[in-house]
């Protein structure tokens, strides 16, 4: 009992020590860090040297520490979200100076992803005109003398999508910077579609009740709705009410599809009395790049389902 009381006292003393130390650390006079807040330190470096014409003084630009500079704002848009090789995309940049200081000089760079190149002489700027314009294949640099507080400059330029772009990521970053301002950037993600250089093919086919066992659909051989075809990559395809199906964007190469007989109870694959190869349970298609493959499944009423 006595021991328990002693432990309780110790605990209380420890709590008291914690509380006291907190108050002592916060009751003292404000520190120097706090005093410096709100003040702006203007720092400018000066260099002097004795030249042939006497002492020369060179002054650097001012740097200001402690000033809350509202950063430049940059917005990047394009006239489309997705493009294919051969398309020209028009990008627009809007750079605004919301601060109270002049941004001078203003430098704007735009870095293009792989496979995108500038259309020559396509840069248009309003209302300011750039003093310097450097264009390489994959980057654009514009320099403006100054951007007044509250003013904006709008830049538009065209970019050509080359077939190389399919291998790139389509992410384009523009950056605006000026002395004394934190550089700001704006990305734009363009979805690159393979378009005319796509190598995906299309597979189409039909599931029908074969009456003459030749594997071809003729009049009087109706299509079977809601039949399921499985592809080698796991795609599951459902036939329409006429028994037709089509599958776009299939990677070229050797493709195999098979009929899920469980999806059409009462039917099984029909024998093909003309072509022994078409008696296979699956269809094998060599799909050339951009090509069209066909998978027809002939079915016939079945029996003996308990055998399998």
């Amino acid at each position: 009992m006595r021991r328990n009381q002693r432990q309780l006292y110790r605990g209380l003393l420890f709590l008291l020590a914690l509380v006291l130390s907190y108050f002592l650390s916060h009751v003292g006079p404000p520190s120097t860090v706090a005093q410096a807040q709100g003040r702006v330190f203007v720092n400018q470096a000066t260099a002097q040297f004795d030249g042939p014409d006497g002492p020369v003084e060179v002054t650097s630009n001012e740097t200001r520490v402690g000033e809350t500079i509202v950063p430049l704002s940059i917005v990047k848009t394009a006239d489309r979200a997705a493009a294919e090789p051969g398309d020209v995309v028009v990008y627009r940049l809007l750079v605004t100076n919301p601060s109270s200081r002049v941004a001078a000089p203003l430098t704007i760079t735009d870095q293009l992803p792989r496979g995108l190149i500038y259309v020559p002489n396509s840069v248009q700027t309003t209302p300011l005109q750039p003093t310097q314009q450097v264009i390489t294949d994959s980057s654009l640099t514009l320099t403006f003398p100054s951007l007044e507080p509250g003013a904006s400059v709008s830049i538009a330029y065209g970019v050509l999508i080359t077939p190389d772009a399919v291998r790139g990521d389509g992410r384009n970053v523009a950056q605006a910077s000026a002395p004394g301002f934190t550089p700001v950037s704006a990305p734009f993600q363009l979805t690159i579609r393979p378009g005319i250089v796509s190598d995906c093919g299309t597979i189409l086919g039909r599931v029908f009740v074969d009456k003459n066992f030749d594997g071809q659909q003729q009049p009087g051989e109706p299509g079977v709705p809601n039949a399921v075809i499985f592809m080698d990559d796991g795609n599951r395809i459902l036939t329409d009410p006429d028994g037709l199906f089509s599958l776009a964007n299939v990677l070229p190469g050797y493709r195999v599809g098979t009929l899920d007989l469980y999806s059409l109870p009462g039917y099984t694959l029909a024998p093909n009395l003309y072509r022994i190869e078409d008696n296979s349970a699956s269809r094998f298609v060599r799909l050339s790049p951009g090509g069209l493959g066909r998978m027809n499944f002939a079915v016939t009423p079945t029996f003996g389902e308990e055998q399998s």
Partner: protein
Amino acid sequence: MKQRWWIGYGAVALTVPGLALTVPPVAGQSALGDYSLRVTSPEDGPVQPDEGLTLREAIELANGTLTPEQLSEAEQAFAQPLPTGQGSRIGFDLPTGQTTIALVDLLPEIVAPELVIDGTTQAGYDVSAGLDPKFPPAPVVSLTVAEGSEVARGLTIAADGVTVRGLSLYGFRTSDRATQTTPPADIFISALAPPVDSSPLSPALELFRLEDAEAAPRGVIVEQNWLGLPPNGEFPAVPSAFGVSVFNAVETTIRNNRIQNHDGSAIITGFRADGLQVSENAIIGNGLAGMPDAIRLEGAIASSAITDNLICANDGSGIYFFKTEGAAQISGNAIQYNGRRFERAAVYLMGNDHQLSDNFIGYQPGPGVAVTAYPLSLRNQIRGNRYAGLDGLSIDLNTQGNTGVQDFQKGDGPNPPRNSYHRRRETGNAAINSPEFDAYGFVTGAAEVTLTGTADPGTEVDLYRVAEEGFPYSPLSEPLGTVTASPEGTFSASLALPPGTRVSAIASDPEWGTSEPAPVAAVQAADGSLPELPVTPVELPNCAAPVPPPEPVEPPPPLEPLVLTVPRNIHFALDRSDISPESAEILDQIAEVMLEYPFLTVELHGHTDPRASAAYNLALSERRSLAARNYLVRQGVPPERMRIVPFGETQRRSQGSGRVEYARDRRVEFVFTDLRGLEITFQDQEADLQLE
């Protein structure tokens, strides 16, 4: 090597002119000598001169591919020439006790016109044993497959006017092989039947000439046969695949046959079956492991008629039209207890201008009649039928172009009223509106009650009594009368109906067809109350043959709770659906109980363990319950008392993941129902547990 391989279709087309010259005219009757033939030997094998005339020899004689001179003197005595022009007749004079003809190979295709194969000529055929035209007397002569042989077709008919009478045919099917086979059947009717498969041993492939309607056999008659079951009526050791396959024939008549126990459909049409007449047959327990519908209609079926049949206890629909051309008339049939394996409509209609009248359609786990929305089906008149015990609407018109899996099996339920003209183009029977009563209750007057409501203007509204409980839809039990809707779209009928009667209605328009039923309204007593009417007793599932007239008076069954020690489950090995010997013993006990108590029905719930995909397990569980069901059918349990419900892996027996738990999961449960509403006690058993 006689085999001719034609590569591709172009080669076939090129061969056509040459082939047309070599094909002899099938219809040339004068080319054939006509005989009266008596089959005296049940043997089968190569044609050779010996003691008795076999069926194979008789058919070849009739076909003209064999002359009597090629046979022995004794055999020639059984072939008497007949005046030409009337066709040959094959009768039977088999020795007593040797009336089973076991085939070892396909019989030759019958190309002799007007040939009659008459099993009723065999001594011992009892014409008077047939009490009901649907159940012909048991045949004496049976045609089946020799043990160890495989024969795809019983009789292959390719000539006009052939009649097959009074035979029992069963056991015709094919087994698994390198390629699939063309559908086997007891009786296959087509001009130039396709070879069984595409193996190099198959005979050279002729052209089917499917397009040429003149080549199709005309006027074939199949009557008084038992198809799919031996003369003793038992389940055959080897079931047939299909019953009658009308593949390419016109004006075929199938009447007074008993067609039972097929893996596939009892009657299936192929490319052309115009003018098919199916009348007064008993079609029971077909579709056991294949095409589940009793009568499956495909292709051209113009001016067909299906009349006065008993279609009972088949695994799918009673009658299923699949993208047919031409109209059929369906009347006077009893279509009941179907859908044992697939929850389909009793009659599924595709196509225009079908007429369904005076049928009884009942006890189906789906709607009574479903009309598809695609291909758009119009002007189907469905009137004067009686319905009972349905799990769906009596008439279900698919709407909104619905073509999902369920829509082609069970339909899509009640339709909303037509809100646009375009509904007509995407709804069965052109979206004719179902009638609606003005109230759910009508207070009766002194003698009569006046029912009022709305319907499409000018339609004929058939009023029905509804006997079963259920709201707002219930099967239409009995037609009460017909009134015509006014040009404003209202109707009114005064009928003498006792209070408590529940009524519904359907509307028919010759331009569009028949509608779905109206929501049920009730006739109230004068004080507004709704008295209870006496309920009709529950009918036992039954598609048995009629018993002889002097029926022994059975004592009423005792109405006391049954205390049965029935095992309620059997188990399976991993990924297997075959019945182990231990499970067979348990199934024998269940079969014994089922046979002892005819009022018991059972649902077979198939289950799997949780491994493998859900879809695979669903299929596996179905195979398991199917295997159990087919075993019980072989033990004599009537198929109309069993239903297959696969559950897959959704309802496990145990929680764990050990070998024992999984073994417990792999099971078929038997859920018995006593139709008299009494309770049964069950017994779980694990005697047949099969560990991995």
